[in-house]
């Protein structure tokens, strides 16, 4: 009986610690400055079609300080790999240290996929995302909307909660989103460290977001 009470108390304590850690990790993102210690390792999530186009526009503007760049694409995405390779080969590298990799993971959810099966496929994606993020230990995850990024961001968050590494979550909502956030945006709004929107009507609705005008 005492053992049972002890076990329940231990579980509750762990949950409480987890919640406290989650709160601390989410709230202290802006204090973390990985750039001051050296190159910023980036995990970049490339969704299909327009998502990849937008994320590469953003990557184009980033300096060589952001390296290595790990691009993660869904296993069913055929076109993003080519776009990424073309983009990376066109970047001028003054130093040989700049590098990139491309990694495939199962897609969290296909367009129009039912909600019940989405839960299962998202969990499956999480099983890939956790070991991947734990292995790569990026300084930041950069993403812009495809469902694929949710498990990756959650994995990054977990790394911080466990005290292993602070992974900054940088989310840029698509230019297509003028009045409403995407589903991914709504989920990640709560846990991202930097959440960008590209139209002022969204900045008004989501006060934690950053509005710099159109950036793609």
């Amino acid at each position: 009986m005492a053992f049972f009470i002890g076990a329940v108390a231990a579980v509750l304590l762990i949950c409480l610690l987890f919640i406290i850690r989650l709160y601390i990790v989410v709230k202290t993102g802006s204090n973390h400055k990985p750039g001051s210690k050296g190159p910023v390792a980036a995990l970049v999530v490339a969704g299909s079609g327009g998502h990849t186009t937008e994320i590469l526009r953003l990557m184009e503007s980033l300096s060589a300080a952001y390296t290595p760049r790990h691009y993660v694409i869904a296993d069913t995405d055929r076109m993003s790999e080519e776009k990424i390779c073309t983009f990376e080969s066109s970047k001028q590298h003054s130093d040989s240290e700049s590098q990139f990799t491309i990694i495939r993971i199962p897609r969290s959810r296909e367009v129009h996929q039912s909600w019940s099966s989405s839960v299962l496929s998202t969990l499956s994606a999480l099983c890939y995302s956790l070991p991947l993020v734990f292995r790569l230990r990026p300084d930041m995850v950069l993403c812009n909307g495809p469902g694929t990024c949710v498990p990756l961001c959650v994995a990054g968050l977990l790394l911080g909660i466990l005290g292993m590494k602070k992974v900054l979550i940088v989310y840029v909502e698509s230019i297509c989103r003028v009045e409403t956030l995407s589903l991914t945006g709504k989920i990640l709004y709560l846990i991202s460290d930097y959440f960008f929107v590209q139209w002022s009507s969204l900045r008004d609705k989501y006060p934690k977001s950053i509005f710099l005008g159109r950036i793609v």
Partner: protein
Amino acid sequence: MKTVFVTVGTTSFDELIENVTSSEAAQALKSRGYERLVLQVGRGSVLPDPESCPHIRLEAFRFKASIAEDMKQADLVISHAGAGSCLEALSAGKPLLVVVNDKLMDNHQLELARQLHMDSHLLYCTCSNLMETLRTMDLSVLQPFLPGQPKIFANFLDKALGVL
């Protein structure tokens, strides 16, 4: 030769293709000085024959690796409301008429077309008033579309992350 380029992106939009190749539409375009009509029909079931339109020179295809050249040669772009198509036309600096497919269920794509219309970057209609629009539209009201500024994002991120 003044050219109109019609694009439906990766979708199918048979109603637009049929309407824009009708003799009424061809005549409306001709009266505005357009002599060539190029159609990108995507997954549509209608792929018009070049011979089928006597009033105007017609070309049609489904997909290309890049439509940048077609955009460049166009004097007017008529497009579905897809964000990629709209932004590509506007970035090429072309006058743009967006035809909204009101048969589509999920129309969050309309948000962008609607906003760009409010900012006077494009004109807007549906298939039912396409003819009237082609006859009466005034392209001179359109405002130039300035490209997005990813450098502003980069500068912000560098500062936030302490990149030296």
